[in-house]
């Protein structure tokens, strides 16, 4: 997360939060979001720009449309933690197996 306060400010707006949750649940184009929400298409675009600037969503081109999705860097913290966590747990497991083997008759 590049800038925490920017991200928090971006999510302080209820409409923007709903848009973010939609995008987090499923990659979406601007038109799809505007169709499902009581917000105009230009307004959705504006909200997405703020979310993108905050590092919360990323977009990719799909023909003439842009598809918005959760920015992988945003949940990098969770992934990094799990990576370290499982590495540690498996190392403990391997150590345990080794001691059990030594204890075998």
């Amino acid at each position, binding site marked *: 997360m590049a800038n*925490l306060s920017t991200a*928090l400010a971006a999510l302080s707006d209820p409409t923007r939060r709903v848009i973010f949750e939609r995008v987090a649940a499923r990659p979406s184009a601007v038109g799809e979001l505007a169709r499902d929400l009581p917000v105009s298409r230009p307004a959705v675009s504006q909200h997405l720009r703020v979310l993108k600037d905050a590092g919360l969503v990323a977009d990719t081109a799909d023909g003439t449309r842009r598809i918005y999705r959760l920015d992988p860097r945003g949940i990098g913290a969770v992934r990094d933690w799990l990576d370290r966590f*499982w590495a540690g747990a*498996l190392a403990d497991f391997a150590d345990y197996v080794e001691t*059990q083997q030594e204890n075998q008759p």
Partner: protein
Amino acid sequence: MTIAPVRQVVRVKATPPRAFALFTQEIGRWWPKGRTIGAQPHADIVMEPQPGGRWFERSADGAETDWGRVLDWNPPGRLLLAWHLNATFKFDPDFHTEVEILFAPAEGGTTEVTLEHRNLERFGASAADVAAKLGGGWPTMLGHYAEHVATN
């Protein structure tokens, strides 16, 4: 969207059947103390040995804290678990990511254990949901989560 799964590989000095048994039946003995979510340190960690079985920790006073469920129990080669802990490290019956553990025979009677924790993109949606309920931001929640885990 997808987030690359976490994948870790370790070699253990035991055959696959034994590695599987130690991993599942004795997890309470090798899992680091204090790295669990119960209010008290765990006295045991239980994986019920069948699909649909519970996966939980039990403290010395008998209190049980759920972690998830067993999705597939296929010794000695494969174990598939549902990790029902959300982005704030709380049990959530409606949220899960998958943890698959494969036990492959390797030379000298050892076993290569490969662990994959996947569907990590779901944490994003979960964190956003929690953040919305609490009125905070999901980066904050992730920060708390990482901090909580690092210090507990």
